[in-house]
């Protein structure tokens, strides 16, 4: 139970760029843990299939934090260290993933999602992914681009609304 009145969210609006995307906040998550680099590219799309040119994607994992704005075609891309497995409950592990938050004009609260990787054998048995209805799981799994790039490239689109809508999460607090 909360004892203080929680502050509600509001949209990020259209004018956040100079503040939230200052040069020194837009870098990929730090790669100083020596892990292998990966690259993720994708688009943010609305319920009409139209590009969302004023969205911000935040990426959070053990190696750091990054923020990326979408361009006029709704595209975003970032490079980061390949995430490692993280503990779930005692003795069980989660598959490697990136935690993602999506902000945009018109989103009254940010959306939480995750990026998993289709070429990781542990993805299929991930305990969070297994809580997602089976038909929707693919929306959380980035696909490895077959091209021969030096850094492995993954594709991941964020679909805000529609038949192929990305799965967004509501976190349940641990019992206290």
């Amino acid at each position, binding site marked *: 139970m909360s004892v203080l009145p929680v*502050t509600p969210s509001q949209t990020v*609006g259209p004018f956040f760029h100079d503040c939230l995307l200052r040069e020194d906040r837009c870098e990929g998550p730090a790669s100083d843990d020596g892990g292998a680099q990966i690259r993720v590219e994708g688009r943010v799309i*609305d*319920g*009409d299939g139209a590009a969302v040119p004023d969205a911000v994607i935040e990426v959070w994992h053990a190696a750091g*934090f990054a923020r990326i704005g979408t361009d006029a075609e709704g595209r975003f891309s970032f490079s980061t260290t390949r995430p490692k497995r993280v503990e*779930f409950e005692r003795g069980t592990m989660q598959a490697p993933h990136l935690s993602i938050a999506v902000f945009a004009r018109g*989103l009254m609260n940010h959306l939480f999602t995750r990026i998993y990787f289709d070429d990781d054998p542990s993805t299929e048995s991930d305990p969070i992914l297994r809580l997602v*209805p089976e038909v929707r799981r693919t929306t959380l799994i980035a696909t490895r681009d077959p091209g021969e790039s030096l850094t492995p490239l993954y594709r991941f689109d964020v679909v805000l609304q529609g038949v192929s809508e990305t799965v967004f999460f509501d976190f349940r607090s641990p019992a206290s």
Partner: protein
Amino acid sequence: MITTIGEIVRGDATVFPPYLYAAYRSTVRRAPRLPLVEVPLTASELTRSRLDVSRVTDEDADLTRNAGTGGEALGQRIIVTGRVMDEHGLPVPGALLEVWQANAAGRYVHKRDDWPGPLDPNFLGIGRCLTAAAGEYRFLTVRPGAYPWGNHENAWRPAHIHFSVLAPSWSQRLVTQMYFPDDPLLALDPILNAVPEGARSRLVAMYAHDVTEPHWALGWRWDIVLAGPRATAFEAREQSAA
């Protein structure tokens, strides 16, 4: 305000706005329509990620002078201060607060803001700071003006300051807006009114005469209470050892 209100809300539906609030037109094609999937918080959401905030300077919190021109912004000088706390009332120190706002005339320094309000060469309208040990923050700025937008006929946003709060726990992430109490546009604003009625006043700052500085600036106090559990004890120990 009579409008179509969606059922999908993340977090407490008595506090947080629904994604679909049709009076704010941009929600109609961007709000998710499928149910959010409820999952437990894990170490991924509860651990502190390394944030490179070494470049946050004191000057960043003074929006009246941080344009780098040597000149001072025009408008009513105000101090906006408060505390960032979790829902149990514990302070959240080390959170990165980022703010952006229109100038005193209601104009943003932004290529997509093209209404004929005057720009102020000495005002960028962006600032940031880190919360101190008791969760305190403080910005010096000018009171923003209202501005027109294209949502509906003769639509004007009430004066507001955008706040982004990046706390040590990912699940506590918050982006919101702070408003001023004596503003007739509040009742007409679909963005504020998307918040459930009982929680709207939490986005409105209070005039604080004890914050007001004589012959200098008017004071406003606004506390921010973050939903969700704080970073794990393990991480907190690591923090204090650092």
